[in-house]
């Protein structure tokens, strides 16, 4: 049954002195779909491998349910095979010399279950994942999406306490990716299994995650539900990393006139020399020039993104902003920009306040 995962004070140092993880603390609830999101080199895969037992932490403790699986300070370590976890690897790591059936049956055979039981469970899981007709094929004769399903089936067939997914979508092309995400999310909800997914892609993270943790250089930047990360980024890194198209971020001296236009508090202006101003393209709306707005500028470029249009707008003083275009405008036209929300970050990048209009 679903068990939670508790990660306490995890450090990982690769000798001589690469610090991959710095004091990670997380409590993952039973049945939760938890996503670890970060750019490459952030330590996210290392953390997943520590949970799996493929890597040993330098310091700290991991427990699955009530059972401690690794405690670096006490020198205690439980082998991956005794942790009852299922894992899907980035390239799926299917055994190329075995058929899909044998791949899925592999964990059960190792448990020495009776033949009929193995057969029944493999058929069941294959049925559930829609790969029942592929069981005789070898991995080399399957598409990426099918291989992924077999890998998920292999991870699920032994009814693990925790399912670990390491970048499971990154080898799929864009179209299959969307269905694969839905499929993983559906399976996860149906089985109620605690799932930890690692990805560098925020779209993956937000599509499937109940809760998302953002890592950068081995440090937790922010953890929360997707809306939180989007609406209340704790620092410039998160603000920049999350959201598509990316947030407009300006590094400005506090004497800059833009700050007065958007109404930043005098208190902040007096306290700081420089601040970062962050405005999401979706929260800056370009309207006809006669409409009332906070800023005015000239359209430089118009981009079509699906049903929406974004415009890059020159604000003068060498500043330009990407904004949602909600009026007729051509290159060179003047528009007025109405802001919905502005984030203000200190010179060290921490969020000071969010101004709503």
């Amino acid at each position, binding site marked *: 049954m679903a068990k939670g995962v508790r990660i306490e004070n995890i450090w990982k140092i690769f000798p001589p002195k690469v610090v991959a993880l710095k004091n990670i603390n997380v409590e993952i609830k039973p049945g939760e779909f938890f996503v670890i999101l970060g750019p490459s080199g952030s330590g996210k895969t290392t953390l997943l491998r520590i949970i799996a037992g493929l890597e040993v932490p330098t310091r700290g403790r991991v427990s699955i349910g009530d059972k401690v699986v690794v405690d670096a300070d006490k020198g205690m370590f439980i*082998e991956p095979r005794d942790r009852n976890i299922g894992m899907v690897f980035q390239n799926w*790591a299917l055994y190329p010399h075995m058929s899909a059936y044998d791949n899925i049956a592999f964990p059960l055979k190792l448990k020495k279950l009776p033949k009929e039981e193995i057969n029944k469970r493999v058929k069941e899981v294959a049925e559930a994942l829609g790969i029942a007709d592929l069981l005789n094929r070898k991995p080399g004769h399957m598409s990426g999406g099918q291989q992924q399903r077999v890998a998920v089936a292999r991870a699920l067939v032994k009814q693990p306490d925790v399912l670990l997914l390491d970048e499971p979508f990154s080898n799929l092309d864009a179209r299959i990716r969307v269905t694969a995400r839905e499929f993983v999310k559906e399976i996860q909800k149906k089985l109620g299994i605690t799932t930890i997914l690692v990805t560098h892609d925020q779209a993956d993270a937000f599509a499937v995650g109940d809760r998302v943790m953002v890592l950068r250089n081995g440090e937790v930047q922010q953890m929360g539900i997707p809306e939180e990360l989007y609406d209340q980024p704790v620092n410039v890194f998160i603000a920049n990393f999350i959201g598509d198209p990316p947030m407009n971020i300006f590094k400005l001296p506090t004497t800059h006139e833009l700050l007065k236009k958007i109404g930043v508090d005098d208190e902040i202006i007096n306290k700081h020399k420089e601040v970062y101003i962050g405005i999401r393209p979706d929260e800056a709306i370009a309207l006809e020039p006669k409409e009332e707005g906070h800023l005015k500028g000239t359209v430089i470029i118009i981009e079509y993104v699906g049903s929406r249009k974004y415009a890059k707008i020159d604000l003068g003083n060498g500043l330009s902003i990407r904004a949602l275009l909600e009026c007729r405008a051509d290159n060179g036209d003047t528009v007025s920009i109405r802001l919905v929300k502005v984030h203000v970050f200190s010179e060290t990048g921490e969020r000071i306040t969010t101004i709503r209009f």
Partner: protein
Amino acid sequence: MKKLYRFRRTGLIGSPFKILILNIIAWIIGILWITPFIGIFMTSIRPFREVVLYGWWSLSPFTFTLKNYIDALFNPMFSLGRGLLNSFIIAIPSTLIPITIAALTAYGFARFSLPIKKYLFATILFLMAVPQQMTIIPIFFLLKDLHLLNTYLGLILVHSSWGIPWITFFLRNYFSLLPAELEEAARVDGASDFQVFRIVVLPLAIPGLISAAVLQFAWVWNDFFFALMLIFDPNKMVVTQMLPRLKGQYQVDWGLLSSGSIIAMLAPLLIYGFFNKYYMRGFRGWAMKR
């Protein structure tokens, strides 16, 4: 995996000019390599007189005969057939034993950490450079003390221990090219270290194992030196020891000698031919990074 290979292939083949040059070089090497063999073959299927008078390359007169082969195989003094049998008795275990042991050792070197692993491996490589002639005297006395001189077992043990280091080296490189993720997946799936090795690593390494086995078999089969020093009972002599005895006392019977050589060559040749596909794959896998 496939993509990478294709990419390499196009890189190699490139322009028609390059193909021409490569072909010419390959043909030159091939002809140089095969000429002596053709010479021996021609000598073996013609009466000795003809070869001596006109040379093996002249085609007239040409008389085909199997007399040399029959003489060589059924020589009442030195039975080449017995030699072949002895060679098999020696070569088969001398291939299987070191492959088994070296596969385990190599996997250890490829995947497990050990405090002095680097030095240990360097020592193995270093000792591989020691020539046979330097080791033969201690080996001789060792076998004598073990009462294994002039026995099959003694020679098998010597060949096995001679094979283990290089096969270890060969297989270690092969194993470290296998994707580690497969082994990790197996560990998560519940396999013990030995199960990972047996169920996942070994089947994937078959081309490498076969390459090593073919080379080791050919090496043991072709060995003359160890056999010469360690086996002296004519009934236990291997085929390479029998060959020089076909030479004759006062004049060299080239016909007999060359037919004997062809017979002796047959076993390794057939094995190369039979396992050629795997053998090539073993080396191709070796040459490319996956």
